[in-house]
C-alpha cells in the first residue's frame, strides 16, 4: 500500500461533470492489460483524444481535444482532481484508479463517490475526499482556466484548505486513514487475525457445512 504525506498542497483541476462513470475514466479496451501500470496516457481516453485509443497506442502522436480540461497545459502538473457528485460510479474496474494514479493524481475531491471506486482509491494510496456541495460549488465558481488554484490537505486533522475561501473538515474511516498514513500492507494486516479466521471456519464447518463444498 502506497503511503501519502500527512499534509500537502497541490494544484487542482476541475472536471465539471456529474455521475462520471469508470467507463469514462478508463474505457474497456484498456482493461485487457494484465498490469497495474502504464494506464495514465489512456485516462479519460475518449474525452481526451480525437481518435479511438488502444493499449500501447503512442500518446504523443494522438490529437488532443482542445475543450477537455486535462488537455489545458496550465493544468499539466495538477495532482488534485475536483469532480462533482457520484464520481466513479458504475463498473468495479480498479484500472480507473490505476490510470488516475499513473497520470499523477493523488487526491480526488467530490461531493459523493461510487462505493466501489471510493474503496479502490484507498487501496492504491489515493485520498478520496467527500466535501459539502456548497463548498464544492465555491471551488468550481473560483476556478480559473489559466491559473490553477491550490488546495492544502491536512490528513491527520482531516481538513482541507482552499486558498482563502474556506476550510472544511472531512470524514475518513479510521482504518483508511491509518492505511494511508502508515502505508500498511492490507493483507499482512488482516493475516494478523488468522486465528480468528480459523475459529470462524471451524464454526462454519459445524453450523453451515454446505458452504465448505470440498
Amino acid at each position, binding site marked *: 500500500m502506497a503511503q501519502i504525506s500527512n499534509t500537502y498542497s497541490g494544484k487542482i483541476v476541475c472536471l465539471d*461533470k*456529474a*455521475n462520471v*462513470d469508470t*467507463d*469514462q475514466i478508463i*474505457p*474497456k*479496451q484498456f*482493461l*485487457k*492489460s*494484465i*498490469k*497495474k501500470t502504464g494506464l495514465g496516457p489512456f485516462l479519460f481516453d*475518449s474525452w481526451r483524444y480525437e481518435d*479511438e485509443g488502444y*493499449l500501447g497506442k503512442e500518446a504523443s502522436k494522438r490529437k488532443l481535444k482542445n475543450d477537455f480540461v486535462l488537455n489545458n497545459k496550465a493544468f499539466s502538473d495538477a495532482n488534485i482532481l475536483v469532480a462533482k*457528485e*457520484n464520481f466513479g*460510479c*458504475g*463498473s*468495479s*474496474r*480498479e484500472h480507473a*484508479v490505476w490510470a488516475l494514479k499513473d497520470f499523477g493524481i493523488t487526491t480526488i475531491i467530490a461531493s*459523493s*463517490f*461510487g*462505493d*466501489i471506486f471510493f*474503496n*479502490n482509491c484507498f*487501496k*492504491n494510496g489515493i485520498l478520496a475526499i467527500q466535501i459539502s456541495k456548497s463548498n464544492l460549488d465555491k471551488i468550481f465558481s473560483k476556478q480559473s482556466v489559466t491559473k490553477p488554484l491550490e488546495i492544502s490537505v491536512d490528513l491527520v486533522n482531516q481538513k482541507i484548505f482552499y486558498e482563502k475561501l474556506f476550510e472544511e473538515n472531512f470524514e475518513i*474511516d*479510521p*482504518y483508511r486513514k*491509518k*492505511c494511508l498514513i502508515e502505508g500498511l500492507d*492490507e*493483507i*499482512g*494486516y*488482516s*493475516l494478523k*487475525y488468522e486465528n*480468528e*479466521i480459523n475459529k*470462524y*471456519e471451524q464454526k*462454519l464447518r459445524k453450523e*453451515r*457445512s*454446505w*458452504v*465448505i*463444498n*470440498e
Partner: protein
Amino acid sequence: MAKRTLYDKIWDDHFVTSRDDGSDLMYVDRHLVHEVTSPQAFEGLRENNLKPRRVSSILATPDHNVPTTSRDNNVDGIEDSTSKLQVMTLDENCNEFGINQFRLDDMRQGIVHVIGPEQGLTLPGMTIVCGDSHTSTHGAFGSLAMGIGTSEVEHVLATQCLVTKKQKNMLINIEGAIENGVTAKDITMFIIGKIGTAGGTGHVIEYSGDAIRSLSMEGRMTLCNMAIEAGARAGMVAPDEKTFAYVKNRPMAPKGDLFDKALKYWKSLPSDEGAKFDEIFNFKSEDILPQVTWGTSPEMVVSIEDEIPHTSDKNVLSALNYMGLKPGTKIKEIELDQIFIGSCTNSRIEDLRAASEILKDNKISKRIKKAIVVPGSGLVKKQAEEEGLDKIFIEAGFEWRDAGCSMCLGMNPDQLNQLERCASTSNRNFEGRQGYKGRTHLVSPAMAALASLEGKFSDIRDL
C-alpha cells in the same frame, strides 16, 4: 432479540472479527473469478508468496474477452492478442493454484453471474464476491453479493475475508400486480429513474412486496443485477419457495440431509416483521410501464409512452448531444441500427423465451443492420436449442451466438460502429460502452425483440 433485516442476519453470520483499526473482517463464502479483474490479484499473491486460502470457494470462467462467433479453435480463436493473453493468463493462474475453472471449451462456460446460480454455487444466506460490479445479481437468492476491486480480489484470495464496514439497510417495496408486458427489467430501470444512480450509495437494498414475490428467479436476478446502477453494491430478495425449488438438485447445491439442514437455515433468513430500515421507498406496480433509456446514464429513463424530457441541465444536454437526440422527441420515434439480446442482466432462458415469443414467424426490420442474441452460458444455449428457440431467432434474422459478455461492454469484437444506435438488454448506457461513439438504449428482452421487428421502439403492450 432485536428484530433484524435479511442483510443484518447475513452480516451477523459472516462477521469474523473487528480489526484494531476499526474495520471489520467479513467471511466470504463464494468467490467468482473472471479474466479481466484477476491477473493483477494473482500476481500480487505470487509476489508475496501467498496462496488462495480456500480454493473450494472459487469458480473461475473467462467471459468478458471471449469470442461469440465460434469456439472451434478454442483459445486460439481469440484474434486480439491482448484478449487472448488475458484468457491464457486466467488458465495459467487456475492451473497454478488448483482453481476450478469452466474453460472456454467447457459447455458450462458463460457469464459468471449466469453460471453461479445455474450450478447451484449461489445459495441463500451466502456472502458472494467477484471483481465485477454486477455481482449484485446473486442477491436474488437472498445472499449478500457484491462487486469488489482487484485489490480486494487479492485480499479475499489470501484471507477469505473482505475488509469492510456494515452498510445501511434500504427497503424498496413494490405492491400490486405487474401489468402484462412489464418485466423485472422495467421494474429495476423504473426504480433507478426514481432514486437515481446514487440513490442506493452506502446501502444494501432489499426489494420486497407482492410485485417482487411474483417474479421468477430469473426476474429477481435481473432486478438485483442493476442494484449497482442505483448505486448500491448489493441488492437482495428474501429467499422463498421459488428460491428453494430453483437451487434444489443443482450440481453444486447441497443434497439429501444437508439440503434439509440448509433449508431450515434459509427459512430463518427473511427480514423480521418490524425490522428497522434506514430508508424505505414504496412504489406501485401500476405506475411501472415498459422502460427505455434515452441518455448516457441508467437514470435517464422514461416509459415507452413518454418523450425525452425538456431540460437546461448541461450534463443532460451533453448526454443528448452524445446520443444524437433532442428534448421532446417521442421514444416511439427513435429508430435503431442494432439489437443486442444478452448480458448478465438478460441472457437467461426466460429472457430468450420472452424475446423469441415476439419474434416467432416474424422478420426483423430492413432498417436493422445487425441483431445478435448471446446466451448467458453454454447450458442456456443448449436448453434454448432443445426448445427450438435458436431457429426462431435465426429465421427472424438474428445471429445465434456463443456465451459471453459480448456487446454489453464490447471487450470482444462485438461492438457498435460509430454513431450506431442499439436497443440493448444490457445494464449500462454509458458513453462508448458498447463501442466507440456508439449509442445505447436499455430495454427488456421483449421490448428489444419488438424493436427489431419495427426498426424503432414500440409498446409491447400493444401486441
